[in-house]
């Protein structure tokens, strides 16, 4: 960063008396703009399309396939439609707060990208408190959602906002406790540090480091889904009971912001899990070319994240919405105690084997493969029972 700024000043593009701070700020702005406009926002849009296609196939439907090739441009059409719509602000609402709420939700979606570890060098800022920063800024969503619920001056919105606040605050605890095992094993909070402590091979991932981290990874994923208001935890916007929850009174672009943040958060959820438990961008050292290595690492990272995004779509198409008491029971009676057990178990494990055990990685990996085999067998059983032909072609 510093060398880049110095090189830019030396090139004379900004005049002789250019302030290094101003140039650095400009560079940060441009990089942020590229990340948000080039990665985050299109990702959120494309996920909205991909999700609809995935649900559709699971429900034996086709899904959007008319706008562009295979309906790929559907997200663009939807986005343009929302931007062109009238932005209605209800008379009885608290207008400044009402206007501000979507931006806060958007802020909570954009801030985590600062520490997104795409590859060994492709990271905006490798903070030494990276994962802590990530979890704390994503929790900002609750402020925006609660603000939207309150400022709408609408009972549906208020109930939705309060539900969301209760849900996010509750699930922060198991999510935070599930990050601790990894921090205990690595001794660092930096995203890059955590990834570097793992290897490219699955048996060196923290997911398979010991039984406690495996459970912790699952709890963290489910908690992250709950924090992102994803089905089966989408109570704040339960359309059958709350119209659209906190977004009831919103229209046009502000409404779009809420949902863009929701879809974009899928990437952040996936990125947290991939970084902590799935070895992040780790890729075998195949070439000395730094750029090629970085590209391979970025592809690895994105494949892992996209797989987790797909799993969340799959879960959304599978599970029904839970009730609010079930939601709280799951969090406080199951996840929180189990997370504590995980944390203590990992602490004991690290005390016994400070450098970890290689054999455990293989045992856990074998168990996971066995689980996958059982799962595949069940899928084949259901396919056979249906007497339908197998059809893998994604285009129709």
């Amino acid at each position: 960063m510093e060398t880049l700024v110095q090189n830019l000043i030396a090139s004379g593009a900004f005049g002789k008396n250019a302030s290094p701070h101003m140039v650095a700020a400009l560079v940060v702005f441009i990089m942020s703009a590229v990340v948000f406009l080039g990665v985050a926002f299109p990702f959120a849009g494309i996920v909205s399309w991909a999700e609809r296609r995935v649900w559709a196939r699971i429900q034996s439907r086709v899904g959007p396939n008319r706008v562009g090739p295979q309906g790929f441009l559907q997200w663009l059409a939807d986005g343009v439609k929302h931007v062109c719509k009238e932005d209605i602000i209800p008379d009885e609402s608290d207008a400044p707060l009402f206007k501000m709420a979507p931006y806060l939700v958007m802020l909570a979606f954009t801030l985590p990208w600062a520490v997104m570890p795409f590859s060994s060098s492709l990271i905006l800022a490798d903070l030494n408190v990276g994962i802590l920063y990530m979890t704390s800024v994503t929790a900002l969503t609750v402020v925006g959602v609660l603000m939207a619920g309150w400022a709408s001056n609408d009972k549906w919105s208020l109930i939705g906002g309060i539900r969301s606040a209760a849900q996010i605050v509750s699930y922060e605890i198991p999510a935070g406790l599930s990050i601790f095992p990894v921090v205990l094993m690595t001794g660092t909070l930096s995203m890059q540090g955590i990834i570097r402590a793992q290897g490219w091979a699955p048996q060196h991932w923290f997911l398979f480091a010991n039984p406690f981290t495996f459970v912790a990874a699952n709890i963290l994923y489910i908690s992250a889904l709950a924090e992102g208001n994803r089905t089966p935890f989408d109570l704040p916007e339960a359309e059958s009971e709350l119209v659209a929850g906190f977004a009831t009174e919103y229209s046009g672009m502000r409404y779009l912001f809420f949902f863009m943040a929701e879809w974009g958060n899928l990437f952040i959820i996936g990125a947290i899990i991939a970084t902590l438990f799935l070895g992040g961008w780790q890729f075998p050292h195949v070439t000395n070319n730094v750029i090629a290595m970085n590209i391979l690492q970025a592809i690895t990272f994105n494949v892992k994240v996209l797989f987790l995004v797909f799993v969340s779509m799959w879960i959304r198409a599978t599970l029904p919405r839970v009730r609010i008491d079930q939601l709280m029971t799951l969090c406080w009676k199951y996840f929180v105690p189990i997370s504590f057990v995980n944390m203590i178990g990992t602490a004991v494990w690290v005390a016994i084997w400070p450098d970890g055990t290689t054999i455990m990685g293989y045992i856990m990996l074998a168990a996971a493969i066995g689980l996958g085999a059982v799962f595949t067998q069940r899928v084949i059983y259901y396919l056979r029972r249906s007497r339908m032909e197998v059809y893998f072609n994604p285009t129709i």
Partner: protein
Amino acid sequence: MSAVSEYIGNIKDAVTSIFEGMAVTASHFMRKPYTVQYPDRMPVRVQDTLPFRYRGILEVDLEICTGCLACERACPIDCIVIVVDKDPQTRQMLLSQFDIDIAKCMYCGLCSEPCPTGSIHHTTEFEGADYSLESLIRRFVKDPVMAYKPKKGPETDPQIAPILFRGLNYLSEYQVSGEPKPIDAPAVAITRTVLPPLDVEVVAGDKHSKIHPGSNTTKLEITNDESSAATLAVASNAAERERITDAPQASYPLLAQHMNVQGSVVLQAIIGADGIIQDLHVLSGPAILSSAAQQAVRAVAQFDVEIPPRSATLHIHISHAPAGRKVRHFRRDR
């Protein structure tokens, strides 16, 4: 202790049920969607797949309209307006107006029933959306035309004859044939080869007859519940083969194929002493496949059978095996 076991049991239930549920949805993810992408991404027009008697938008063949006004009188909502004049010079009936208001029509079919020539009839067309109510009034008479006068003998005019044939055929579908009483129902098993893609398999009781593609034999087995199986007629000579080739081949219904529908149709058949199926009707099965199943049975069921007329229940299994495409088919586990 029970609280702990309940706690553990809850976790186990949650994990196993989610595991099982995810397996179910994953299996659905690998199936072909049922959606028929009406109207533009269809292999055939839906109108062409509908049965002959489908009650779509009404149409009038003016060439065979006698101007009897039976339809106008039959219409319960008066959506048909006909004006018939008598030409003072030639003393012939002149149709000067024949309007049907499609916006009012409720497709009851009461107008086509009394028509003596089948002139007014339903079509399989159903796409009637329009921008104004005015344009939904179908005006069939542009210039006044002469009403049709039925001839004593058969129709000789080569232009009118096919239209009249079609109209009378339409009407004849109303004629309900006298249904012979079913005798005690023995199960009938038919094994036959058909041209792909239609695949007919007949099941009698717990006995499944296997089809061997490539062989040109037709075999009819009639099994009584009490007695042992007796093969009554095996026709594998050249003449029989030729006859089967000539028989109208049933083809897989295109819409059903597109929608991936396959299944069993159960038919009740009355087989006469001459071995020809006299009456055939559907007992159960997917409606979309029933006409194909009937065609398939009619195509094969002409036999030299030395038995008295009897009723038989035929189970026709229609499965979808298009030629030239490899189908990966999982069989049901028994």
